[in-house]
């Protein structure tokens, strides 16, 4: 394997573009999962009968391999002209992200110390005030841990999205395999790993920053 030649013939501009694409795909998917997952987690504390079915559904979805999920979505999304491209990829990653975020939100909210919950209720806070002023701030570190899981997982999953034309670093990797181009393959794999590491570190930092001061050790 000739490293120097790999670095010379690779289109680094394209690599950069694919990396940004990859980040955008994962970012949008996880972002949507937060927007949907956290309120659903709150709903599950309000209506406990929801927690079983919702968590069950999210778990089942996680077990469906990504290629199968893309295959299932293709005919559906084709109806609105988006069977290929970022939309199905983002949808799959969104669905995968739901479980960690949903579950962590629910767990964090239900694990608020009973003394704190009783005090909040007894001094005259409404359910929503308790949520806003106490429960959610306390839940943020745990929710972000779920986000971290979702992001790192989906950075890997999104490499498969190349097969439906969604772009991202998978393009690099799959093309390299089809051409027996070891150099490009390794470059692609390394970039994906670095991306995952950076994302994890960033989110760790975010988790620390957003943890309420009163909880930091």
């Amino acid at each position: 394997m000739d490293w120097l030649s790999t670095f010379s013939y690779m289109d680094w501009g394209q690599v950069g573009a694919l990396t940004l694409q990859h980040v955008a795909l994962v970012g949008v998917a996880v972002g949507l999962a937060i927007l949907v997952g956290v309120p659903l987690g709150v709903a599950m504390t309000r209506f406990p009968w929801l927690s079983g079915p919702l968590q069950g559904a999210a778990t089942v979805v996680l077990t469906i391999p990504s290629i199968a999920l893309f295959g299932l979505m293709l005919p559906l999304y084709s109806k609105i002209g988006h069977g290929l491209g970022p939309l199905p990829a983002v949808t799959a990653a969104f669905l995968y992200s739901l479980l960690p975020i949903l579950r962590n939100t629910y767990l964090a909210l239900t694990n608020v110390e009973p003394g704190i919950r009783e005090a909040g209720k007894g001094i005259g806070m409404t359910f929503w005030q308790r949520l806003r002023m106490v429960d959610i701030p306390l839940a943020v570190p745990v929710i972000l841990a779920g986000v971290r899981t979702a992001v790192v997982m989906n950075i890997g999953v999104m490499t498969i999205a190349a097969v439906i034309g969604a772009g991202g670093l998978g393009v690099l990797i799959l093309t390299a395999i089809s051409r027996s181009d070891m150099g490009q393959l390794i470059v692609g794999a390394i970039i994906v790993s670095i991306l995952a590491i950076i994302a994890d570190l960033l989110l760790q930092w975010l988790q620390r920053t957003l943890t309420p001061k009163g909880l930091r050790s």
Partner: protein
Amino acid sequence: MNRWLSIIFTLGFALVSTLATAQEKPLIRIGTKVFSEQRILGQMTAQYLQSKGYRTDVVAGLGSTVARSAQENGELDLNWEYTGTSLFAYNHQTEVLSPEASLERVRELDAAKDLIWLEPSRFSNTYALAVPREVAERDGVKTISDLARVVNASDEPHLIAFDIEFANRPDGLAPLVERYDMHLTRNEVRQMDPGLVYTALRNAQVYAGLVYTTDGRLDEFDLVLLEDDKGYFPDYTAAPVIRRDVLEANPEIAELMAPLARLLDDETMRALNARVDIGHESPADVAHDFLRKHNLI
């Protein structure tokens, strides 16, 4: 906040792009699979049609069934397809026909799905079994029958690499070993991504492997194609396949594509593939070069 904006943008953009249909020049959406030959064909088609006044959009690197499924669902207009692939993988045929009969049959079957086969190229990118040159010389393996002999003769395992799809299709591996009376144990069959077969052969990690006859890596990796002496592998002539509604809207495409298709034979295709796989040129550059050389643009 920014995240929200980008989400809204993405969703909004998706919506707008689906709504933006009616415009001046017709848009032809071309799909290609992952391997280099497909990318080159896709680029050639796109650049050629552009020079003829069409707008084109190439969605490259799709999984094989994804590309077909997308075309059936109206997401793609034109794909380069192979007679054998459509017959066996998409239409679930089992009979192996002559090249002419294959073309006729597949035309018939796909027409029923509103997919029209335009004038075909001159090359057939069919399967072959290949061995590294040292193996061919050392063990005197020149045909698939030779291979079968070697495999059956000893208890020592001989690993053979197949792509996953071929290994599991009812008209793939099973009838092949039956035809050649090759006794392969489950352990000797290694399934993998088709691109990896070449890597495995180059690294002598397998004894033999299933390759494609127009692949650009055959010469460079010093692989010898074994003769299909019992004529098992079917025809895989390549041709552009277009959706019926797109063809009816743009009937001149059929005539336009013909000269391009006629220019492509086995050797030409193999050479173009090698320029991408070995020479590391981009498919777009190679396509452009070819079209200019033949005065098509």
